[in-house]
């Protein structure tokens, strides 16, 4: 997976977020404040523009630029959290020109640690971690099992999707949905849903 691959990933994310913008906002309206779709759309549109303007030369530099742009443009909790995820992944990749599935797995773990350090959320708190953590675990397992890259990304995407859906019966303990207490039960977490989109886009980038 080279710089071009990761640029394609960001393109796929931007397209998926644009297509799902209203859906994400409606999920957020149910248990939050109805701005998640609009915020991520603004952020990834800005990330795409930043990439077009700067043409980073390595996957690491590309992801750090995406992360910094998200922190600068999105606001809310999702800006710093998603921004940190991309920055940490990019930093873990270092100067490498080509990223193996094992290195991607390392990067994803770094992203997860960064998000958890900043947001202090654990699995089961009904946040983006509930999609990110299972995806990181599935990718690590796929690498250990020696799966092909496409299969490994497929496994990560499936795990993220399943993790997002599994937030429906949970009561939120972090983020704005936590203010609703028991009334947050029965709704999919918007952050977990958008995280699942990111992994769907990763799979799509691999099959380009």
């Amino acid at each position, binding site marked *: 997976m080279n710089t071009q691959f990761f640029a394609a990933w960001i393109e796929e994310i931007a397209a998926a977020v644009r297509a799902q913008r209203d859906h994400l*906002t*409606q999920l957020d*309206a*149910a*248990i*939050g*404040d*109805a*701005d998640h*779709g*609009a*915020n991520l759309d*603004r952020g990834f549109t800005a990330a795409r523009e930043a990439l077009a303007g700067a043409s980073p030369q390595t996957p690491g530099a590309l992801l750090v630029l995406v992360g910094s742009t998200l*922190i*600068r*443009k*999105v*606001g*809310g*909790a*999702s*800006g*710093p*959290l998603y921004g940190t995820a991309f920055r940490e992944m990019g930093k873990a990749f270092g100067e490498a020109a080509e990223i193996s599935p094992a290195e991607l797995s390392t990067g994803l773990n770094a992203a997860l640690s960064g998000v958890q350090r*900043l*947001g202090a959320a654990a699995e089961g708190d009904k946040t983006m971690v509930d999609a990110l953590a299972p995806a990181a675990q599935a990718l690590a397992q796929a690498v250990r099992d020696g799966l092909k890259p496409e299969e490994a990304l497929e496994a990560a995407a499936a795990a993220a999707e399943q993790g997002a859906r599994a937030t429906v019966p949970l009561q939120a*303990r*972090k*983020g*704005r949905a*936590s*203010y*609703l*207490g028991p*009334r947050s039960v029965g709704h999919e977490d918007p952050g977990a849903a958008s995280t699942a989109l990111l992994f769907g886009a990763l799979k799509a980038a691999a099959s380009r």
Partner: protein
Amino acid sequence: MKKLINSVDSVVTDALRGIAAAHPSLRVDLENKVVFRAGAPRPGKVGLVSGGGSGHEPLHGGFVGHGMLDAACPGEVFTSPVPDQLIEATKGVDGGAGVLHIVKNYTGDVLNFQMAAELSGDEGVEVATVLVNDDVAVQDSLFTAGRRGTGATLFVEKIAGALAETGAPLAEVARVAREVNERSRSFGVALTPCTVPAAGKPTFELGDTEIELGIGIHGEPGRTRAPMREAREIVRTAMDAIDADLPLSGETLVMVNGMGGTPLIELYIVFAEVEAYLREKGATAVRSLVGNYVTSLDMQGFSVTTCSLTGELTRLWDAPVETPALRWGR
């Protein structure tokens, strides 16, 4: 959705243009989206910066001026501002005595202010932070995001701003800001939801005979739904929640705040009931505010905020203030 906007994407910028045009006492940086007090920074004075999502007007931009904030950073509607904005504001109001960040306790606000404080610190600006978390409708625990910051934000901005105006050092301004927060409690009630421009429809559904108890200021549903009833009964529910958390007594500063779509006549009806409740508890409303100060777009409803006063806090509350939305004594 019917709203007086030009486009959903330009809501904040278009409003800032209006604020700039209407209030020459402010300097509005349209590019960075920061509302500055004209003449900032003032040498030797602690700078006060607040900010948060838009949609709560006049909070925060309407409270920039003499005796209150030095700068305000509006984010998108209901979305916290970004670190770049906050850094511009922080550097722009630092007169060498440091800067106080007044932050409402929401995950997004906390994270963005935290990043801005760290980066401003790297650039040599001393920053102290006070978190406002006055909303008793949210159960506080180590395992949650904690209580929300709502109406007490205005009290903190006014009282800390008055102290900063006297030339007090950063540690003192931060201390009094925290004391105001600790002495303040709020509870909110919605009769209708609100409509976020980007969403285009109400944030939740509420029947004609239902109300939401324990709402925040972002159009989120409250903790419970209840049948509509007399103002007296609704006020009792709100005040019971406050009194159970911090028993009401002594000289009290009270705000009955409209959520944006509530007629003033109803707010005064609410205030009369609040005042009667306080008397029943042996407390006295010695200072009061009734009006739309910390709003939630077009939501109908109110919040009530109380602050148990001390001599020092009363003096600072009474000190002159001159901002677009709050002015007296000057």
